[in-house]
């Protein structure tokens, strides 16, 4: 204990428990920190700023689309807006959201270890993320990035100014941040698990992070190479994708989706990973079919590499390729279904508490199911031909990316907020914001399924009058969604300012991360933990472990003196 006190001089105020927030003070101590928790918090702040920016662009896009014709901006400006919305949401928000923010914070704690395997690399990956963000800002400031987040050639490689090059290089740099986080997680999961934490006890959140990390490490380099080739074509005139220079534009689509389809799983697997924890905690039960759920994450990660061609059924691939990609795409439905079935089965004979994180988890199941089922229309060849590149696709991937990943992320943020900040939040406000977000989201995007099946193409600045009503209601929904997020922001800020002090285990979870103080000790646990039971072994957890410090709506034992 003395040795520890010497290496880590504490600045915790007298009478307050030492934790990762108070043991060192000052901005510099944050900027050069190697503590995964502080890096996680820095990531969290950064991605929330990105989410806010992407959200503002989304509302501008929806406002323009609220009525046909010119509403608030010109077509060219609109094209930049939807490009920025997509690029920011995908590359700056969703991809890093759960792994880099929540994952960084909780992966080592849930493994019962002090930090990730390579703390310096972890900090480096954060600064690489910042560098990529700055490059993206440069791109936005110096010119016109209106290619869509997909950068399809030859439109992108023939762009007149250098802004598109800056943007692709920004994404190139951001990719390295993702790769390094993935590497770090793989090494940490393999080598740094606490004694007693064997693979079959691994929290399902960790399984999800692990599967995600595998994709990050294997797929992101392909995107990096592709964007580099694109940059070479745009700046040096080397013909790779542009037919005028002897290239093939469909080749770019293959390369791009070889990354970007697995990237869909970089986005959704962490969402599923969080939901596992939420369902288990708020049903007080182990996830039904633990190994099936764990393996479904791994198999999604692997299958994700084999289905990129389903983005290109109308592109002019050979019929053989089309057939194979369609067949493989249907296989993805299997592990996704396994998860949904097992989550539902977990609820059976549970002790279910509908706290705000659980509302997000249940919303996730419903919205992800809609996202998954509508995927069947798109994996099926003849119906995809009609629906491809219409609003049906826009609605489908928003149900998966927002209804799935973002709901998972927000649910996780609510769930772990007391652990990260040491404060409780106002549950009533949380439920109000959940209701607004849930309603607003569905109003915005469910109508877009009908717009799409009626033939409304995506990325349209203007549209025919027959689509006006649905577009109007959809835009209205997006404002409700926006208000929901504002209420949530206010709720979290209020919690930071005057939230009730959080007990170590406010939700009564058997998860390892709740076995330490809130906020956690700088070394995560005051003593090195030894895992004698699994993270979902509620029947082995004592009443004291589960109900100590429960905030009071159920009779629990007195807090330990």
């Amino acid at each position, binding site marked *: 204990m003395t040795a520890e006190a010497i290496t880590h001089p504490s600045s915790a105020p007298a009478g307050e428990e030492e934790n990762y927030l108070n043991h060192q003070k000052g901005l510099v101590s944050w900027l050069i920190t190697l503590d995964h928790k502080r890096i996680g918090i820095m990531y969290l702040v950064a991605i929330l700023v990105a989410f806010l920016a992407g959200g503002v662009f989304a509302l501008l896009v929806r406002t323009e689309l609220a009525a046909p014709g010119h509403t608030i901006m010109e077509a*060219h400006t609109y094209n930049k807006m939807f490009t920025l919305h997509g690029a920011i949401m995908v590359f700056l928000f969703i991809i890093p959201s759960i792994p880099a923010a929540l994952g960084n914070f909780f992966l080592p704690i849930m493994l019962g270890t002090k930090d990730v395997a390579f703390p310096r690399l972890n900090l480096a990956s954060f600064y690489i993320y910042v560098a990529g963000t700055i490059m993206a800002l440069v791109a936005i400031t110096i010119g016109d990035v209106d290619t869509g987040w997909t950068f399809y050639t030859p*439109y992108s490689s023939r762009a007149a100014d250098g802004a598109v090059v800056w943007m692709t290089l920004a994404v190139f740099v951001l990719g390295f941040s993702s790769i390094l986080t993935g590497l770090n997680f793989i090494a940490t999961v393999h080598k740094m698990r606490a004694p007693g934490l064997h693979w079959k006890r691994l929290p399902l959140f960790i399984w999800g992070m692990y599967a995600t990390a595998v994709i990050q490490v294997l797929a992101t380099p392909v995107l990096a190479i592709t964007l580099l080739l694109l940059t070479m074509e745009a700046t040096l005139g080397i013909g790779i994708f542009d037919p*005028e220079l002897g290239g093939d534009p469909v080749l770019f689509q293959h390369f791009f989706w070889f990354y970007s389809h697995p990237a869909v799983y970089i986005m959704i697997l962490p969402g599923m990973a969080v939901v596992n924890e939420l369902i288990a905690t708020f049903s007080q039960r182990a996830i039904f079919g633990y190994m099936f759920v764990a393996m479904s994450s791994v198999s999604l990660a692997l299958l994700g590499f084999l289905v990129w061609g389903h983005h290109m059924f109308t592109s002019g691939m050979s019929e053989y390729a089309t057939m194979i990609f369609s067949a493989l795409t249907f296989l993805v439905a299997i592990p996704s279904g396994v998860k949904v079935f097992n989550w539902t089965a977990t609820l059976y004979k549970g002790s279910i508490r509908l706290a705000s994180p659980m509302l997000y988890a249940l919303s996730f199941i419903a919205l992800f199911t809609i996202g998954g089922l509508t995927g069947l229309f798109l994996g099926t060849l003849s119906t995809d031909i009609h629906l491809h590149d219409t609003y049906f696709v826009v609605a489908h991937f928003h149900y998966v990316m927002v209804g799935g990943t973002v709901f998972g992320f927000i649910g996780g943020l609510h769930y772990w907020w007391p652990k990260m900040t040491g404060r409780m939040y106002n549950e009533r406000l949380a439920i109000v914001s959940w209701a607004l977000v849930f309603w607003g989201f569905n109003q915005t995007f469910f109508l877009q399924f009908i717009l799409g099946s009626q033939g409304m193409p995506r990325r349209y600045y203007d549209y025919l009058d027959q689509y006006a009503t649905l577009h109007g209601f959809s835009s209205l929904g997006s404002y409700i969604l926006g208000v929901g997020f504002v209420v949530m922001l206010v709720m979290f800020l209020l919690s930071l300012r005057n939230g009730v002090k959080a007990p170590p285990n406010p939700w009564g979870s058997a998860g390892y991360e709740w076995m330490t103080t809130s906020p956690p000790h700088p070394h995560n646990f005051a003593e090195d933990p030894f895992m004698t039971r699994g993270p*979902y072994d509620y029947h082995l957890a004592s009443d004291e472990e589960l109900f100590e410090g429960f905030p009071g709506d159920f009779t629990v034992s007195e807090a330990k003196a």
Partner: protein
Amino acid sequence: MNNRIVQNMAESLAKTDKMFSRTSQSVAVREAPLASNLVPVSLGRLKKATLSTLTLVTMALASCGGDPNGTIQMPPARSTMAPEVDWLYYFIYWMSVVSFVLIIGVMMYFVIRYRRRPGNERAAPTGHNTPLEVLWTFSPLILLWFLFDWGFTGYMQGVVAPTDSREIRVMGSQWKWEFTNCEGIVETGNLTVPVGEPIKLIMNSTDVLHSFYIPEFRVKRDVVPGMYSTLWFEATQEGEYQVFCTEYCGAPVGSGENNAGHSAMMAKITVVSPDEYENFCAEGPPPPAECEGREGDDRMVCWGDSIFHNPGYACYTCHNGVSAPSFNGLWGREGVMMDGSVVIADENYIRESILRPQAKIVQGYNNIAMPPFRLSDNQLDAIIAYIKSLEE
């Protein structure tokens, strides 16, 4: 109401029978060796049994596949392909509705039934049920295989055009569609086709990616620079149908009503009776809208001017006095041909030079071989009027 449903179901049943017999034969019937190679898998009797069972289930659920007047979800079905796509769409739709209601219904029931109450703070430990896991892991495969097979068969029909299709060239460019119809008549922003005849579009792009989409026909295909892509359809009803560009292709900088770019890259398909189409091919398209309201010569000169400047014909690229004789002052001039003969540029000379350009070539202009242009008589008159007007 009930009668209508029964009637719909009866019609649907007939339609489905037809459809299934077609899906099993059509590929071979259409004389497409590629396609028949591509359907190697036949589940034989099992498939037939599954099909008929699922057909009955579908029958009970869907009542609106391929409605020619459209439904709340689908635009009017106006091509031979559309009803089959709609059938599959509604099959997946009802399957999804049932799955969703089951899953979410069970979930909601559990949430209410097992909510935390005093005495229920501790849940029962989770058990294992491997047979259940195996069941719900592998049983969906059957349904998924069925969907794949149905979708793929429909897709192949859309890919392989009947061999007797009428071929039409389509050129996409930022931000307009151009069609070369009737083996030579160029239309911009509108394509006239006959009803009840397979039409095969051979498409490419002059600049960036585009995609050609007709919602009412349920067809779509990307239009790619540097390669040809094809799409075919057979319209089942006369009328005007919307064409959209569905691959993002940018927009010009600046404001203005015509600056919507990608979202304004639309065209119409005008489906007419075979007689009207024949007439159209003989007469050619009517004069463009900007010439409406003008009279006599003035109208013809305007029309000829628009043909001369139509990028689909692109007369102006060669007829500049360098590659080919300029039209300025051409009318009534004497010219020396390659064979030494002297010809006066009159109506007959101009007509011949458009329809059979190689018949008489002016000395000094033999570097470029002009292709014949199949213009209608009215269009030829317009061009002649236009050249006459340049002489004054």
